[in-house]
């Protein structure tokens, strides 16, 4: 048996000071030359983004008939991709809010870009249901309650309307959380920017932040309150997404396991996406000092835990199909495993059920290449999960006379690939123009290098003893 180390490895490499942390992170935005790799990556992402534009324009011109959806499978890619993207977003809020409340200081170096990932994922997700309405320009009065001249109101007893409120609240609160976290860093960029344009833009966004003691006091309170509000929110969002399915009577959807199983799946896919992004970013930008092996190891552990919950969900689905003795449920499960889409089901079991079991091994958790590959496999697996849930339940429900098949068209794929382009384009712009790691929160980690000081941190990682803050050498 290997010995368990008492003190976990540091969350920031030793030797850093307030100044070095500030300089290193802000230099990526302010002084570093925009690399060829960035232009290449952004170029590819932007090309994919244009695929999205074309797909949307053609869809609006012709209608949803260009998609593979039809009766009985009326949901198809639109809902599969919506649920997939929304799920990915959940890791950002989990990292920024829940890990903050649990005083996990290691979250500090990954929360900023995880939150950005949330925003971009929610933006990508929101496109699908809006376009799926068929006539999005009318969707305003279908989705939002406002006094219109037709005297028509939305149906508040429908989970689809709950979803509108859940997702729009989630997008708003994620944006607020992200922006509030950015304010002190925007002030740093304002003060350090060499160009006038930079000073004006960052200055306007920083809103005159000057780091006053009473401002920090209120800021900390606000940040904690936001974390407290975002925590139940993030759980509610995927719960309500699962209600879209569970409140119906379709076999395979009408299950009480759905809310917790969906929330765990969301966190699972989100952490996979954080790893997919973090591993190349830390390598390319040389951020191994800040996103250390401990971060990757911890995220891999969360991946393993949520993966086990998801695997439990799959088992309970199969068990309930048998235990309920309901003809339709039993048939649905058999059809899912051995029907026309059986290959997708077994692929999902391999991706989501078996692959994460490799993470029990510490050597794999700390091997960045393997971890990266596993995170990609999990991303694929979670997409397959949504495909299986949406398609296998709908294509053969109660009456064999109304059974059918579903296959996506090139426009389904175009829209899906296009949202990946949107997501990556926004991410590349974010990496270039905003600090991808929270500078002020990283400063608070500097004293935490001393093992004894780690426990003294307040919720946002603030050192409670000023003596714990390392004195700096004079400039």
């Amino acid at each position, binding site marked *: 048996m290997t010995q368990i180390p008492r003190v976990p490895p540091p969350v920031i490499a030793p030797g850093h000071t307030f100044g070095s942390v500030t300089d290193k992170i802000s230099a990526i935005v302010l002084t570093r030359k925009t690399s060829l790799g960035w232009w290449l990556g952004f170029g590819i992402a932007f090309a994919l983004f244009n695929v999205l534009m074309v797909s949307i324009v053609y869809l609006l011109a012709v209608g949803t008939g260009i998609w593979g959806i039809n009766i009985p499978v009326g949901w198809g890619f639109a809902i599969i991709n919506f649920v997939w993207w929304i799920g990915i977003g959940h890791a950002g809020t989990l990292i920024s809010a829940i890990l903050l409340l649990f005083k996990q200081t290691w979250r500090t170096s990954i929360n900023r870009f995880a939150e950005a990932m949330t925003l971009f994922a929610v933006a990508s997700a929101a496109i699908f249901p809006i376009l799926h309405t068929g006539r999005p320009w009318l969707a305003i009065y279908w989705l939002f309650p406002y006094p219109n001249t037709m005297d028509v109101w939305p149906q508040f007893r429908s989970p689809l309307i709950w979803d509108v409120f859940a997702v729009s609240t989630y997008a708003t609160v994620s944006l*607020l959380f992200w922006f509030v976290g950015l304010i002190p860093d925007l002030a740093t960029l304002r003060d350090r920017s060499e160009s006038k344009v930079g000073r004006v833009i960052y200055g306007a966004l920083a809103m005159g932040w000057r780091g006053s*003691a009473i401002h920090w006091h209120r800021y900390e309170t606000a940040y904690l309150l936001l974390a407290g509000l975002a925590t139940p929110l993030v759980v509610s969002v995927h719960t309500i997404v699962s209600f879209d399915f569970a409140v119906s009577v379709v076999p395979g959807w009408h299950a009480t396991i759905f809310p917790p199983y969906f929330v765990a799946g969301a966190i699972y896919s989100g952490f996979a996406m954080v790893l997919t992004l973090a591993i190349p970013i830390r390598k390319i930008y040389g951020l191994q000092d800040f996103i250390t092996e401990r971060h990757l190891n911890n995220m891999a552990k969360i991946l393993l835990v949520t993966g086990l919950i998801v695997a439990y969900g799959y088992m309970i689905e199969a068990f309930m199909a048998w235990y309920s003795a309901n003809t339709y449920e039993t048939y649905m499960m058999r059809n899912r495993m051995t029907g026309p889409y059986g290959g997708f089901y077994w692929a999902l079991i391999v991706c989501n059920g078996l692959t994460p079991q490799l993470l029990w091994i510490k050597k794999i958790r700390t091997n960045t290449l393997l971890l990266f590959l596993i995170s990609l496999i999990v991303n694929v697996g979670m997409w397959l999960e949504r495909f299986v849930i949406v398609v296998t339940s709908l294509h053969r429900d109660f009456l064999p006379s109304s059974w059918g098949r579903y296959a996506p068209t090139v426009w389904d794929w175009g829209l899906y690939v296009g949202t990946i382009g949107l997501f990556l384009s926004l991410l590349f712009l974010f990496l270039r123009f905003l600090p991808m790691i929270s500078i002020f929160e990283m*400063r*608070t980690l500097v004293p935490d290098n001393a093992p004894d000081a780690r426990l003294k941190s307040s919720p946002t990682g603030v050192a409670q003893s000023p003596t714990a803050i390392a004195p700096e050498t004079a400039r």
Partner: protein
Amino acid sequence: MKPSGRPTVYGLMAEFETAHALVEAARRAHDEGYRKMDAYSPVPIEELHDALHMHDNRLPKLVLAGGIIGGLGGYSLQYYVAAIAYPLNVGGRPLHSWPMFIPVTFETTILVAALTTVLGMLALNGLPQPFHPVFNVPRFALASRNRFFLCIESRDPKFNVDDTRRFLESLGAREVTVVED
């Protein structure tokens, strides 16, 4: 600047190299009787507002009020829509079907509370603020990097440029600068 063209003094700013020095200085300045002052740091420091005897617990109360308004507002909206403005008789089921209104009520509670948190924090802090005299000190740019500043303002009754400067220097300040208004 006053119309006469002569800059007026906003206060005196002392620069410190460590958070510890700043907290100590703030404490001693308060003991000395200075009240109109503020400290500036690149990181939140738990003891600093204590040392300055600055407290403000209004934000959580505002957020609570925001949450209650959001919850009541969300529920009332749904009641109005489902029972008054657009009643739909579905198999004789009650119009006021409250269990179905809970998810949206929850979301509006969070939404209004979160908006109150952020807007309340900004409003109480007086942000956005396009200009503040402390930015007239060139070295103040380091307040967002690695330096710690204490500014005693001229509106403090005990303020006197020479005495206050001597006092700040006695606290071990690296540099004391006049902040022009």
